[in-house]
């Protein structure tokens, strides 16, 4: 009896404003408020508000049989509070249905798991507090930034009391195994690992509106048919995708909302199928095997390693200079400083410094900068100012 688990990742970066050399020591407003507000408003109008309304409608219509999960970065929560309180309220309305699970992730949408276990833990802790505060939930499942994962990440996540961790399913570590079962990370005794069903998730997230795709146009009954093909081959079908897929990456005109409106009926037509949140699915299905992933894996589309964020010298220099600040930030213990530092840790800043290697990288690559070099020099100006203030503060 396979279960379908939707998990939507919600994130929008704080884009930095062009920060000139002459601003060093003079201005500490790093963010491009106007751009961030207008993008946040636009995403809220096109995606968050209509899609949340649709999910609410589906949950009510199916009386508990349609269930989904969400993972919101702390960075997007900040921006929802600032620029789109109406959208934040619609997420809270979903939380109140009891059919929506909220996961934890790093508060700053950061790569802290790679650089500092302490910082990783405190960002998770902070995110946990906010989930309780905003949605009244104590998350039991965890999803790391960009699906960055290995045995070590699993160990920390288990130690922090989570019962489920999410990862990308395209890892070579999976070898012959299918992502449609629940696994146990090597070295863990309770934690369960849920893997993204690569192909089915991307059918919706990337291929849905592609006219070159043989399955175009994708209808809900066709897709439900593909899911039914899993019967006997799997227990969980994990459809993990960016929430901005709905209305932003796939415009409303592509029919994506109609597709989602029709999908639950089509899936539930077969009594062997149901929808579960990720933790519910992890609870229901037994561990089928242990997975040993000693090296870092991350979301696909970014390559199998971390090179999209830490592949070149610019990224390595920026990350090093950023995490060098940790001791000083901890020493100061100033909430404002910590918050600024965390926002600078957003993986997006490093991603903009990525030099796309292949043609497919170019198409999906979005950046507010003209070149990766500009992304680097601008970020380093901001970071230099942050460090100047950090030292000045600590010498006070």
């Amino acid at each position, binding site marked *: 009896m396979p279960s379908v688990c939707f998990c939507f990742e919600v994130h929008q970066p704080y884009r930095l404003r062009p920060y000139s050399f002459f601003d060093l020591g003079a201005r500490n407003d790093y963010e491009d408020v106007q751009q961030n507000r207008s993008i946040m408003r636009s995403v809220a109008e096109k995606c968050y508000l209509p899609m949340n309304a649709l999910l609410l409608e589906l949950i009510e219509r199916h009386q508990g049989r349609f269930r989904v999960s969400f993972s919101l970065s702390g960075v997007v929560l900040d921006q929802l509070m600032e620029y789109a309180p109406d959208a934040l309220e619609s997420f809270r309305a979903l939380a109140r249905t009891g059919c929506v699970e909220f996961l934890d992730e790093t508060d700053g949408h950061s790569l802290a798991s790679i650089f500092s276990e302490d910082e990783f833990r405190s960002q998770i802790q902070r995110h946990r507090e906010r989930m309780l505060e905003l949605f009244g939930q104590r998350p039991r499942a965890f999803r790391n930034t960009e699906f960055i994962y290995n045995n070590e990440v699993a160990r920390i996540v288990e130690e922090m009391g989570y019962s489920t961790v999410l990862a990308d399913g395209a890892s070579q570590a999976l070898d012959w195994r299918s992502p449609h079962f629940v696994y146990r990370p090597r070295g863990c005794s309770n934690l369960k690992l849920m893997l993204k069903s690569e192909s089915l998730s991307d059918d919706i997230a990337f291929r849905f509106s592609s006219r070159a795709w043989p399955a175009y146009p994708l209808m809900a009954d066709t897709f439900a048919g593909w899911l039914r093909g899993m019967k006997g081959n799997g227990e969980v079908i994990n459809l993990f995708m960016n929430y901005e897929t709905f209305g932003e990456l796939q415009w409303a005109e592509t029919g994506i909302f109609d597709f989602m409106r029709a999908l639950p009926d089509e899936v539930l037509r077969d009594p062997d199928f149901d929808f579960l949140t990720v933790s519910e699915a992890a609870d229901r299905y037994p561990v089928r095997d242990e997975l040993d992933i000693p090296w870092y894996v991350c979301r696909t589309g970014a390559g199998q390693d971390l090179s999209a964020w830490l592949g070149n010298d610019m990224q390595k220099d920026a990350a090093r200079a950023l995490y060098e600040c940790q001791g000083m930030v901890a020493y100061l213990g100033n909430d404002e400083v910590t918050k600024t530092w965390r926002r600078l840790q957003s993986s997006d800043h490093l991603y903009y410094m990525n030099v796309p290697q292949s043609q497919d990288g170019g198409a999906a690559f979005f950046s507010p900068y003209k070149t990766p*070099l500009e992304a680097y020099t601008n970020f380093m100006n901001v970071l230099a100012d942050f460090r100047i203030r950090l030292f000045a503060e600590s010498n006070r």
Partner: protein
Amino acid sequence: MRVLMLGWEFPPHISGGLGTACYGITQGLMEKGADIAFILPSMKADKSTPGSYLRSASGVPISRALKKAVEKVQRQQESDEFSHLFMRPVNARLNPYGSYDFGQLGIDPDVFNENDQYVEEISHFRGGYHDDLMDEVYRFTTAASAVVLEEHMKKRADVIHAHDWMTYPAAITASRLSGLPFVAHLHATEFDRCGDHGYDKIYNIERDGLQAADHVIAVSERTKQVAVERYGVPPEKVSVVYNGAFLHEKIPTFEIPELVREEKRVLFMGRVTFQKGPEYFVEAARLVLNEMPDVRFIMAGNGDLLPRMIRRVAELRMGSRFHFPGFMRGKDVQHMYSMATLYVMPSVSEPFGIAPLEALQCGAPILLSKQSGCAEVLPGALTVDFWDVRRMADKILDVLNHPDMAAESLRLCQDALQQLTWERAADGILDAYAHVCPNARS
């Protein structure tokens, strides 16, 4: 004294170091009473220009007779030693009206052939430096010659003064057609711009121009030496005239934020290209930061090596100490100099170099490469071989560690700067003219 100048840059039309120098030279000469017509390939009509002596070669009608005369000169040149000068024929554009009313001034009589006075073409130039630069240089030969003859006839001129290789072919032709002496001003050579990997074509134009010139003005002893050794110009034909500095009456004061007031800043400002030696600055920065981790480095400017410099800084992991503010203009330039604890010009080859003069006026001590012409007139300046990165780092550290020493060097340089006026440069130029025209001082 009437001078017909040919140039490629003039503020505000494309203004690099060359344009700035041309401006200073004309200002200086005009104060000495010279009458100057400055001929440029193109000017934007919408911009107002100081003085009415600027002439654009764009839109100047060129008669059939003139074209023929130019072609004749060109054939002569080809049969002479000037085999490298090749004038490209330009697509003819017939224009039935407009003709010259040339008087008699010792000009090649072919120009006045009455059967050929209809306008054959009107050349247009983009000016500046584009992919079609070479084409514009060749076409400028005919158009500039037309303007020279027209000006010469309007009012008898004494000399043609051409700035750098772009205008040398035009000057040679105009000189032959008009009978006026030709003075070539050497602001930079292909060896300065590209080391030993320059374009042969440009080198050939430079060599032919310098050899054809009746007299040559070099901007430093160093440049004179290049003219003599690498272009085969007889030393007695070359005068050295240093550029002047535009002395500002008052440099605005710039508020430095309190948080960074005590920081030590080392500045590179200029085109980020081979000639300016940016990589030596980056490598020296690494050595300095090893000793003194709280110094801030700035590389202001744009150029083909900029991406490589940024990647190198990242590779050396010093991006939070090394900044790239990009191309600066106007007040930002002075602001930058004013903030600098030290200005470094590590040029691989700098015929003169105007930027350090700006830096000095804004109160920044300077460290120059020994390969910079302006070091000849700034005896107090710190110097280092551009390639000697270790020494460069040592000198930077000296300045940062010993502010008194830096202040003394700055004072000496600023004193020397007072002597570097465009008026003095104009005197030198008039002396150079005197070699080729008898009434230069009248």
